[in-house]
């Protein structure tokens, strides 16, 4: 699953203009990485495109940290 982690790191680093090394699972999108609600929604769109998944609305609402996003993506990829 480190492949997912790497891909997610790259997407987040690119979108939010942060260092990929700073994108670790415990980081909060809003508090640590400077994302606002629009950025988070845009990131979900990027994840969906990158992994060929569709993230349900209720899943999105639970994503606070990078780890939350990775868990949700792993689950949806496994269900594919």
């Amino acid at each position: 699953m480190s492949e997912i982690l790497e891909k997610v790191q790259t997407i987040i680093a690119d979108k939010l203009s942060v260092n990929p090394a700073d994108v670790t699972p415990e980081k909060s999108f809003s508090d640590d990485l400077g994302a606002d609600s629009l950025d988070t929604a845009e990131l979900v769109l990027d994840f969906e495109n990158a992994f060929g998944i569709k993230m349900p609305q209720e899943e999105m609402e639970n994503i606070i940290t990078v780890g939350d996003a990775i868990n949700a993506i792993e689950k949806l990829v496994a269900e594919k």
Partner: protein
Amino acid sequence: MELQRVVITGMGAVTPIGNNVDEYWAALLKGVSGVGPITHFNPEKFDTRFACEVKNLNITDFIPKKSLQRMDPCAQFAMVSTMEALQDSGLDLEQVNKERVGVIIGSGIGGFTSMMDSAIAFVESNRIPRFSPYLLIKVLGDVISGHISLKYGFEGPNYITSAACASAANAIGDAFHLLQLGKADVIITGGTEASVNETAIGGFNAMHALSTRNDDYVHASRPFDRDRDGFVMGEGAATLILERLDHALARGARIYGELCGIGMTADTYHITAPAPDGHSASASMRLAMQDGGIRPEEVDYINMHGTSTPQGDLAECIAIQNTFGDHASRLLLNSTKSMTGHLLGAGPAIDRGHPQVHPAQHRPPDHQHRASGRTHPARLELLHRRPRTTPYQHRPLQLLRVRRP
């Protein structure tokens, strides 16, 4: 109540012939043409395949990549020209009362390209609605001024004006009036446009408004020339820092000039064509002079709209002749659009970005150009379709004295 006086204390520009005021000005004096083959899209199948695009602007030198994702090029251009204008004004951003600083920018269309690109992507993805949350903040026009106020924390009046080719003129007019009334101390104003895209070129082509001089595009933008065949699409932005005179004096600002009057009218003739007799253009000039307490004989120079369309240039000449009468023959007239192309809503801002400090005003008229009789608004020789004996050439920006009819 006594109206406040309003002065210009800063300028910035991003244009097809220069990405700041100094570059722009130097290019104007050299007579550089900003036109080239369209690079923003493949224009192969279009009637017009050239435009005046902004060139070599390394946008990430000005705006962080993260912010760029949320900005249409029209907002990016306005931001860059505003950064330059603010720096030029010497306004101390720590000291200024930000509740009294406004931002009013003109744009004819706003985030047109972002809108079009997203619609294309939607159709190409079999109409599955996967729109970016950034989309509407790129499309809506008001974010142009919004981005500027967010960056600097300016909390005064904040909006855009849209009035086609007069958008920026209206923005400058609104800023002027608000400052006169004492509703703000400083207003960042001007215009921006970024519509070199398939929809704009195709749409204006359908209206037969654009030049199609593809085989000689460098000479396609030729305001007041007999053989003009339409305008050349441009893009870019220009910003003026307008300020109450007392505020400018109190902070020891360098003052470029005073804005002393505005006139606004509508000609009710046709949805796109100007009234052939130019009556409303004439009226707005009279109102502006009245507002500013200036007699027609005191006017030395007019940077004309001069889009190089057959109808527009002619109506404008007639309007000037009717407004100024005998004095029309003594006016210095030209149009910088021969070099920049037509920036639509941003036009009035870039056309106005310099006359207050126009070095050419102190030059003798260009006799050689006079003798060639090539650009003669007031003679109205545009009416005649006589064959040209000499090829059209771009001339450096020098003021042309118009011969008596």
